[in-house]
């Protein structure tokens, strides 16, 4: 009955960012279902629940209270159940260490949060429409960071 949609989850402690995120998807003409969580603990509680509907793409903010993005990334990568989830790091920072660490830990793409709404929409649309299989097989450090 329901149309094919892309299930998207964002974990970010910043209310404004969550608002931009959901607004952007509302304006985009892509059939998506967006869930947001306020921190890493909430996210992991949801994912670990037996009845959870696992997302196609998970956007992870790095700097979060209680459990930060890196910790979530490690937990997700340790559990085979989550193997099919594409993980996009979604952070204000674009420091070398963060990029390096998340790449090594198995994230699929690194997005620096854009500073205007039009760019944000473009980035999110690009990311959710990526052919993940294709992207992941040719993944390297150079194309890990999404260049705008």
């Amino acid at each position, binding site marked *: 009955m329901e149309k094919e949609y892309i299930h998207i989850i964002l974990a970010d402690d910043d209310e404004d960012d969550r608002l931009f995120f959901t607004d952007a998807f509302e304006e985009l003409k892509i059939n998506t279902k967006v869930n947001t969580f306020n921190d890493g603990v909430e996210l992991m509680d949801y994912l670990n629940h037996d009845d959870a509907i696992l997302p196609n793409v998970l956007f992870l903010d790095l700097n979060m209270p209680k459990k930060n993005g890196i910790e979530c990334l490690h937990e997700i990568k340790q559990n085979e159940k989550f193997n099919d989830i594409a993980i996009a790091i979604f952070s204000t920072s674009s420091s*070398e260490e963060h990029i390096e660490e998340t790449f090594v830990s198995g994230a699929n793409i690194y997005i620096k949060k854009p*500073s205007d*709404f039009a760019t944000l929409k473009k980035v999110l649309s690009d990311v959710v429409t990526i052919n993940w299989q294709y992207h992941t097989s040719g993944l390297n450090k150079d194309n890990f960071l999404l260049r705008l």
Partner: protein
Amino acid sequence: MKLNTFYKSPVFLKSIFVVSIFAIFFISAITFKHINLLNNSSKWVNHSYDVNLELERLFSYLKDSETGQRGFLITKDSTFLEPYIHAKKNIDHSFALVKSYTKDNPAQEENLRKLEFYISKRQNYLSLSLHLSLKKPLSDKTLKEKLIIGKETMDSVRSQINQMILFEKKTLKARELRYKDTIKVTPVFIYITLLITLLLISVSYIRITKDLDKMQLANNRLTVLNESSNLAEIVGSFGSWQLNLDTKEVVFSDNVYQLLGCKPQSFIANRENFIKFVHPEDLSFFEGEPTDRIENDNLAPYTYRIIRKDNQLRYFRNTGRIVINRSDNKILIGTTSDVTEEVLASLSLEQQNIELEASNKELLAFNYVASHDLQEPLRKIQTFVSRLSDKEYQNLTDNGKDYMDRINSSVERMRILIDDLLQYSRATKTEKAFETINLNDLLENAKFDLAQSIEEKKAVIHSETLPTMTVIPFQIQQLFVNLIGNSLKYSKENVAPEIKISFERVTAQDEDLIPKNTKDKFSKITFEDNGIGFEQEYAEKIFILFNRLHNKNEYVGTGIGLAICKKIVENHKGFIFAKGEPNEGAVFTIYLSENC
């Protein structure tokens, strides 16, 4: 060469001594023999005289007896017979004497036998004629006959005696000759021996004098050396010591005592007495045998505290090594230095270093966190502004639109400033990931980053082939971006920017700009443009953080870009220099060390 070594060896003096002793013995033996000879010869002279005298005497007794006999024969007076009888006795005595003198000479004995025969013959005639005349008076004729016979025998006796005297004289002469011969040769011999001995002694004297001079010289040098080493110990505040590992004997130099605040040699030099000064917490350094701390004949240096006699706390450092002396004893020689100043200085330096490092880290962290965390609200302002512009712009009055634009440009400026600061703090961070990489690739990346700007300005970039080097790739790329970006930004209006990038491999010696004390080889990369240039007096100022030559209305910028360049070049042990001429262009020269 061999002779020379012998002359210098101690055996030489000993041999000279032995030879001289033998020579002196030889001379005394010869002299003794000679005196003996002299003694003998004088005895022989006396002997010859005795013989001759006795012969003369014998002859005179014979004459006496003849005279007596003649007197008696002529006068018949018996008083004349007295000397005759007397002489007869004397003759016998005298003859016996001569006989005893000559008994060791066969030739004289033969002569003596003849003489005896003549004498007895003569005596016979004498006694015969006397006998005859006592019986009856002798006729003149017989008397004459007898007298003639008597005279003839007497002549024979005389000639025999003369012959004997002559013989004795001859013998004496022969002896004298022989003695003279000996006496002529021996002095020459003795003289030569003496001369040789004197020569040998002179040579050894010279040798001894030379040795003495040398010894004196060595002694002087030793005294000076000793003095200077004492002085050096005082100036360098260290003392020296020796520990005989076999006999456990210990020697401390004067300064060891002085370092402990004691008078030189004021206590017995041994380990126990020294350990009394060691700080109780550092006694572990002196536990066990001294040999425990020796590795490959070297005493590994160790630092410990001591409490001086005046209760001052000082830091000492011991070091030493093993030597083997002539008696095959293992001796540990070492020095004890007072390193208090050094230790205190290094302690305070260490402390300062820790503080400095901490404050530096704090500053970096602050810089990073500040610029990083500032991005977050700024990004949101920008996003909200962009949403406002998109959705509500047409609802604003003209004034409102103007305010909106101004907010936008201010926020954009702030974003650039924060980005640059973040880059600067990244360039300053201590962790550096060096990689060997082709700089041409980094230059291409930089051009790609600036592609939009290059296209807009229709800039032309000529570049020589750059080398492959060990660098921090993202920083060098940043450096290229900043330098090319700088040239693009400060280009002349209506003139297409032209940037020439050249490369050369140089050493510090070849370049006037870089300090001569480095022996490094450098890659010299030059960026030359045809932009607006600058006054040369600002050439150094432009690399200082936040320093700008232009108003922000003329050229946008934060004054951070070139400061980042300088930081990056310094991270690569290099140098950056700028040369400018207004309206002509600018040249940026960077030197990157090849030994990063």
